[in-house]
């Protein structure tokens, strides 16, 4: 489970500054449970975007955006609406946003931040990974996460250590920033690389105190819950 929260609408509308039309994608998996990107939130986002003067060409909620195969099959019936949009807004976790960005040849923007739960981050078949940084940067990097794709998690660009496109630290991995460069170039968005990034907010990257303490605390000191008395049907028979 990846827990996500919707970004502030001001941030979303700033991403769409130069775009007239947008297609909204939601996820019927964790994002629906999080209350950040299920069918209800997608409809609500459509209303807000329309009210803000944007042409919403279409919307779609897909079961599990973290699977690229499901992204492609889920969006198959919406190709014309997608093509008509200048950009795609995705309301889900960092993995789902990256999967949509990999599958759709359009500028893809994050509508949510993924919150660190301080636990196991799950396993996915695809190559996309989410850092749960709470400040999703995928708008600036063509939908490829610099925190997970770059071994050093650099946000200001490549370190210069790559050799023939491979990472200096892990030569079996592609240089994340070269992947980002190639993606942005393909989408005609190379000017995004000039964005001056602020230092990361590490307070948002840490699991929130209540999330860090509660599960462990609960394991060591199980909460005293009164078990409701249930009459045994066997007893009833006997009585």
């Amino acid at each position: 489970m990846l827990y996500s929260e919707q970004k502030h609408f001001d941030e979303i509308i700033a991403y769409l500054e130069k775009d007239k039309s947008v297609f909204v994608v939601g996820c019927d998996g964790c994002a629906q449970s999080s209350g950040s990107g299920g069918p209800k939130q997608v409809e609500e986002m459509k209303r807000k975007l329309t009210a803000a003067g944007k042409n919403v060409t279409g919307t779609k909620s897909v079961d599990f955006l973290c699977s690229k195969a499901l992204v492609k099959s889920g969006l198959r019936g919406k190709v014309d609406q997608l093509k008509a949009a200048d950009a795609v807004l995705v309301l889900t976790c960092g993995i789902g946003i990256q999967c949509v960005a990999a599958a759709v040849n359009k500028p893809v923007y994050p509508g949510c931040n993924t919150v660190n739960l301080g636990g196991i981050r799950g396993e996915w078949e695809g190559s996309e990974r989410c850092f749960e940084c709470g400040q999703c940067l995928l708008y600036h990097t063509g939908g490829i996460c610099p925190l997970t794709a770059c071994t050093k998690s650099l946000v200001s660009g490549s370190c210069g250590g790559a050799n023939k496109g491979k990472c200096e630290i892990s030569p079996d991995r592609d240089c994340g920033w070269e992947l980002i460069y190639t993606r942005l170039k393909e989408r005609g968005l190379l000017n995004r690389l000039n964005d001056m990034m602020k230092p990361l907010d590490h307070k948002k990257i840490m699991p929130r105190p209540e999330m860090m303490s509660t599960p462990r605390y609960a394991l060591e000191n199980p909460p005293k819950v009164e078990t409701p008395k249930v009459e045994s049907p066997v007893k009833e028979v006997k009585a």
Partner: protein
Amino acid sequence: MSLQSQLESGKFAITCEFGPIKGTDTHEIIENIEILKGKVDAANVTDQQSSILRMSGLVTATLCVQGGLEPILQMTCRDRNRIALQSDLLGAWVMGIKNILALTGDMAAKGDHPQAKDVFDLDSVTLLNTIMRLNEGFDLSNNELKGKPAFFSGAVVKVESNTEASEELQIIKMQKKITAGAKFFQTQAVYDAKSFERFMKRVEKFKTPVMVGVIPLKNAGFARFMNANVAGIRVPDNLIQKMADAPKEDREKTGIQIAAGLIKQMKPMCQGVHIMAIGWQKKVPEIMAAAGL
């Protein structure tokens, strides 16, 4: 004349570098300062280079100031968070250190303490931006400082790239570093004047002084090692052959001659040379003489 006035007045500047010692015996540092002062404009003091633990660069740079050699304090983001970096920067200014070279830094996994935690709270660009804020009299959280520094900050850039993406990313990042306050650049070692000329044509528009990096070759094996292991270094085959052909007693001379020849070729294209004579600091005056500096 300080490095800043040298570069700002458009003069050709010469810098070299040395790493702090591993331990507390400072004899070698003092000796190097004596040899280099008055000869070079400034000396880089590295920051746990290649993630190998050394004595503090801040203290070594202070020894340079006391010994009359202007230091360029290298600062990486690997070992210190934004609080420690700002604190050391303020302390450095108080100790008379005026030049900072801002780097992201290698990962700890590459060094002699591979178990260490990498910090990377900031990176080269955000560190430059931090220095700019301190110069303006504020810390990163916009608190006002009582007394402010006036650092002259620089950064590094790689000349040789082996993919289009890598080359473009270097140029874009160079632009970002300038926006964040870099006033000069030192390059990774260059062994091909033609590629340096091409590079300089691309970055001319930035109008920011570039000092070309030169590492004298020690032997053919050293050159091959750098080609295989150091990103952004490409020693052409003819230079490796020259080193291999030199008889053992002439190798040092040949290495110095090659370095001097490169400096002579590239001097007209840029605003300075940065001589990284790894373990050969004492040879720097000899290299300079051979290059006619």
